[in-house]
């Protein structure tokens, strides 16, 4: 997590850039850049908050949020496993919800708050979920791990918010925090190394700690 001083600085940055952005989007509204006949890249400005810091980028419209993070911001914690929404390695939190960052364009996320695995915690200040993954060896090669962790954090929020799942016995009651629920809700994150059993233990431990 960012230190308090970083947060303050970020808030100031945010205000300044937010103003600039508003001006940009006003002038840009309604304007429609035409693609060149040979398919010349169409550039578009976008700004979003990643891990508490505002980033303003000029991107090829084709750039996914995933590639914006990895190739432009060099936040390579978010992984490209399939680029087609079939593996979950690219899972990030956007405005608090987990999504596959490979299947959304960066420009569709104007003004969003994005949290990647780097934003959850660093090597010296691990998020409880990151620490539980280490303790329970909830990974092997590590490539699906950031996506698993982002997903796991969101899953606990979803259960708390009462969002049902495929395995919820009762659609209308409060949602139970069982291993079966965790497994179903985590199923969009494939781990080919097969650390599932350990991942569920890590998530269960964090869930218990949260009460």
């Amino acid at each position, binding site marked *: 997590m960012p230190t308090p001083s970083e947060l303050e600085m970020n808030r100031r940055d945010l205000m300044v850039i937010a103003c600039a952005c508003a001006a940009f989007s006003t002038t840009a509204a309604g304007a429609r850049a035409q693609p060149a006949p040979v398919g010349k890249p169409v550039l578009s400005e976008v700004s979003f908050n990643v891990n508490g810091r505002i980033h303003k980028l000029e991107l*090829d419209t084709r750039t996914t949020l995933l590639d914006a993070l990895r190739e432009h911001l060099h936040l390579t914690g978010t992984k490209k496993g399939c680029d087609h929404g079939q593996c979950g390695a690219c899972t990030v939190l956007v405005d608090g919800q987990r999504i596959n960052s490979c299947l*959304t*364009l960066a*420009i569709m996320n104007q003004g969003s708050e994005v949290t990647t695995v780097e934003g959850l915690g660093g090597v010296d200040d691990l998020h409880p979920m990151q620490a539980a993954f280490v303790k329970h060896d909830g990974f092997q090669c590590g490539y699906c791990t950031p996506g698993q962790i982002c997903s796991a954090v*969101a899953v606990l929020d979803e259960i708390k918010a009462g969002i049902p799942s*495929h395995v919820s016995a009762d*659609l209308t009651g409060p949602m139970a925090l069982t291993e079966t629920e965790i497994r179903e809700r985590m*199923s*969009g994150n494939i781990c080919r190394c097969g650390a599932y059993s350990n991942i569920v233990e890590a998530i269960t431990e964090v869930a218990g700690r949260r009460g």
Partner: protein
Amino acid sequence: MRAFSYEKAASPAEAAAAAASDRDARFIAGGTNLLDLMKLQIEAPTHLIDVNGLGLDTIAPTTDGGLRIGALVRNTALAADERVRRDYAVLSRALLAGASGQLRNRATTAGNLLQRTRCPYFYDTAQPCNKRQPGSGCSAIDGFSRQLGVVGISDTCIATHPSDMAVAMRALDATVETVKPDRSTRSIPVADLHRLPGKTPHVETVLERGELITAVTLPKPAGGTQIYRKVRDRASYAFALISVAAIVQRDGSGRIALGGVAPKPWRVEKAEAELPRGAKAATEAILAGAKPTHDNAFKLPLVERTLGAVLTQARG
């Protein structure tokens, strides 16, 4: 992926007008299927009209006791809506059986209806596919067709519609509301939204160029016991081999729609009269005229057995 320009539409009608003026324009909502296909050059728009942010993301009661679901309501939000959970459980269950938590957070109601087939030959641009490239032939009919359709198909295409949600909506007699580029609106029963392939498998719906889905309305609750049973090889995050959406009343009458067997959510109202006679009779009526391949002939007994289990469960 070709370069494309991008606009955020200002209103549904303007979005429709913009789409009509450009043959190579597409609406983008959740993006979870369109971007997937664009990366493979199966869809190649040069202009994207972003319809997020048009206020089409609310669920409201209708005057006749039903629900009006905005086209941009996300799958998660729809599945979790209290009214849907209480009164349209089959829809909630169908949504939750589909995709993954991440995908459901972005995928939209209209996008889910309009998603394209998952036939592997459609997805491989080196292979002939009448749906992707009209007239090129169908690689699937004599190829690997385990996942593909058994009924409603044609000799040009045996692709299935992959949605779970749409199957439940078919059972619920949902209606699609649209706006056309000329600002006129119309209602289309979900039953009529998707076209069978015939000789034109690339034409998948009755929507006109530029026509934008704005909402899906559900009639007043159908009551009964509502079940969505999805059958698949792995336990989650997989497309259906087959699925059964059932609304079964105390008197044994009911509605059945099937997924994974046809180019559209498959329901044969006439066949529902057979329900009191049991799963075998009902299945025979629903799948009358089925033409399975060697690979997917198992879907017929599978439907029968699954329907049998669903009816047993419904009758408690």
